[in-house]
């Protein structure tokens, strides 16, 4: 909100309290507020989706990025854009395409690793492979339709540049509906985390609960991807934070994950803007904008190392 190039923080406050000139007001209300809101919504969706996946698969290393869901969603969105079926004019079509792609990615992974009871790391590795194939497909599509390249690169990494009220209008009902639905699954998922046998003994239809959670995760991811692109590692790491902060009872942790995800993405966006500004002042380059996704990916990679090491150490 307050980290853009101009107007300054003081002016923003003036706008919010209703005493500023029209330019500043336009910038704040038409550009910054929706941008912040979209970042919040997408972050919440990704955090939720990650926790759903990790609980349903009982795999601390599952996340939308490494289970093929995000690359699939990107592929769907890019394909739709490339074929001219969808564009920035019709964001709804992008959501649908992203959803289809996400399900494709998740389905591929399931075909590879899901049928046998496999250990978490193996599933993660297969997920990386599936993601690689999907990324290869995406690049093929981009080569066939090179005109889209510039705008799509922003998506491949995840960015909140130039998001306006329309995006928000499209994102919030979707995110809210699926978010509420997912939170309704909290109790069964808490059981699932304890293990299949215990869950069955407690009278839970394991397969159905897991399926429902996966559907919710894919839908949430697709919504977030179509809004801001593939923000790296948010869905993988936010759940770990959430579990550390809120504990293992998903009834509080699911909303908690949404909250943390929202804060993380919004914070990354603000930090990215500050960075961009510093770079512009430092290097005198006019077009320097650091996408938020770059930040989340780099920070996320470091955190992932920590998480992987911790889990690895527990098993050696």
């Amino acid at each position, binding site marked *: 909100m307050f980290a853009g190039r101009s107007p300054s923080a003081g002016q923003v406050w003036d706008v919010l309290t209703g005493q500023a000139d029209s330019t500043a007001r336009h910038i704040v209300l038409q550009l910054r507020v929706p941008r912040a809101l979209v970042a919040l919504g997408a972050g919440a969706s990704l955090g939720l989706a990650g926790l759903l996946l990790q609980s349903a698969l009982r795999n601390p290393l599952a996340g939308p990025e490494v289970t093929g869901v995000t690359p699939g969603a990107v592929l769907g969105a890019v394909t739709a854009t490339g074929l001219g079926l969808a564009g920035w004019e019709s964001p709804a079509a992008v959501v649908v395409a992203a959803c289809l792609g996400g399900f494709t990615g998740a389905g591929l992974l399931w075909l590879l690793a899901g049928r046998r009871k496999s250990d978490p790391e193996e599933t993660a590795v297969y997920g990386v492979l599936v993601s690689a194939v999907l990324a290869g497909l995406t690049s093929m599509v981009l080569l066939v339709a090179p005109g889209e390249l510039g705008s799509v690169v922003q998506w*491949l990494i995840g960015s909140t540049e130039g998001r306006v009220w329309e995006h928000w209008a499209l994102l919030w009902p979707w995110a809210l509906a699926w978010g509420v639905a997912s939170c309704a699954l909290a109790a069964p998922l808490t059981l699932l985390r304890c293990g299949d046998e215990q869950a069955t003994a407690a009278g839970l239809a394991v397969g159905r609960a897991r399926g429902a959670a996966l559907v919710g995760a894919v839908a949430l991811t697709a919504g977030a991807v179509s809004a801001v692109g593939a923000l790296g590692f948010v869905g993988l790491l936010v759940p770990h934070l959430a579990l550390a902060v809120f504990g293992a009872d998903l009834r509080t942790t699911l909303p908690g994950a949404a909250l943390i995800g929202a804060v993380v993405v919004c914070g990354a966006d603000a930090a990215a803007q500050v960075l961009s500004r510093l770079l512009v002042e430092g290097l005198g380059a006019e077009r320097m904008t650091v996408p938020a996704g770059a930040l989340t990916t780099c920070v996320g990679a470091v955190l992932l190392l920590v998480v992987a090491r911790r889990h690895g150490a527990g098993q050696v």
Partner: protein
Amino acid sequence: MIRQLAGALALLVAAAGVALCLGTPYVAPHQLPAALTGDGLEAVILTELRLPRLVLAVTAGACLGAAGLVLQEALRNPLAVPEMIGVSSGAALGVAAPLVLALSVPAAAQPLLALGGAVFGGVLTLVAAGFGRSPSAVLLTGAAVSAALQAGLLVLMVLADQLDLQLIYRYLLGSLSARTWDDVVGLGPWLLVAVPALVLCAPVLGVLRLGDDDARALGVRVRWARFGALALAIVLIAPVVAVCGPVAWVGFLAPQLARRIRPGSEALSLLPWSALCGALVVLCADQPARLALAPVETPVGAWTALLGVPAGVALMRIRRDRPSRQASEGSDVMVGGGR
């Protein structure tokens, strides 16, 4: 053995024939010798365009295949491939950064830049993963490092303008188009370093295969051996990446094919096979890259990724479902199982 070798070579010759004959203009196979020695348009196209491209594909494929085998054997992990441990992305970043930032770099320095990037990525992964204690830890770490480097690349792409973007994008996928003899010659000195090192290194790889404890008992310094193997792989990969971009997943598929052809053999005898398979894979993938969507060229890396990953995974799974042979081999430490 002889039969397999003959088969592989026949395939190689056939693919080379396709590489030389097809395209615009079409040169019939029986006209090849005449066209190669003659002068005229066809001769120029053959000797200046198709032949160097063919040689480059074979060389690059052989390098990547051998490097993939070295990494897989050293880390005892069928998924330890250049793409997964940050080497490829590091090298690509080293090459792409000056392009975007509009720094002029002499062509000779490009392999050095790639080398720097590859060293950075590979060492980062190894150090972060604790020198490959558990194979899957290396992979996850590598995936994280790769992702971070990829993010760096994407930031560069966001900064680039449209023309640069096309160029970089093609390069990042790995493409053999418009490569000349200069590029092929540029690879030479690196190969002179790498090939003897490979031969020297191979016996140690065979020992590493036994597992860390046994290797230590035999007097191998495991960490240094791993580092050496990584260094060797980097020397093989970086120049290839500098010339034709990170051709994806060849280092994954070629060793799998080699093991398929020669099950149960030593690392030393697998090396030439792996190199041969790599050459075959790249050469075969380059043909659809040249011809499939003519006149537009598709990057060879996209094809190797699309076809290579599923094929490699299938091969891995086939091998896993037949554990009888693995017991005697000991090389098949599956992902997540190397403890």
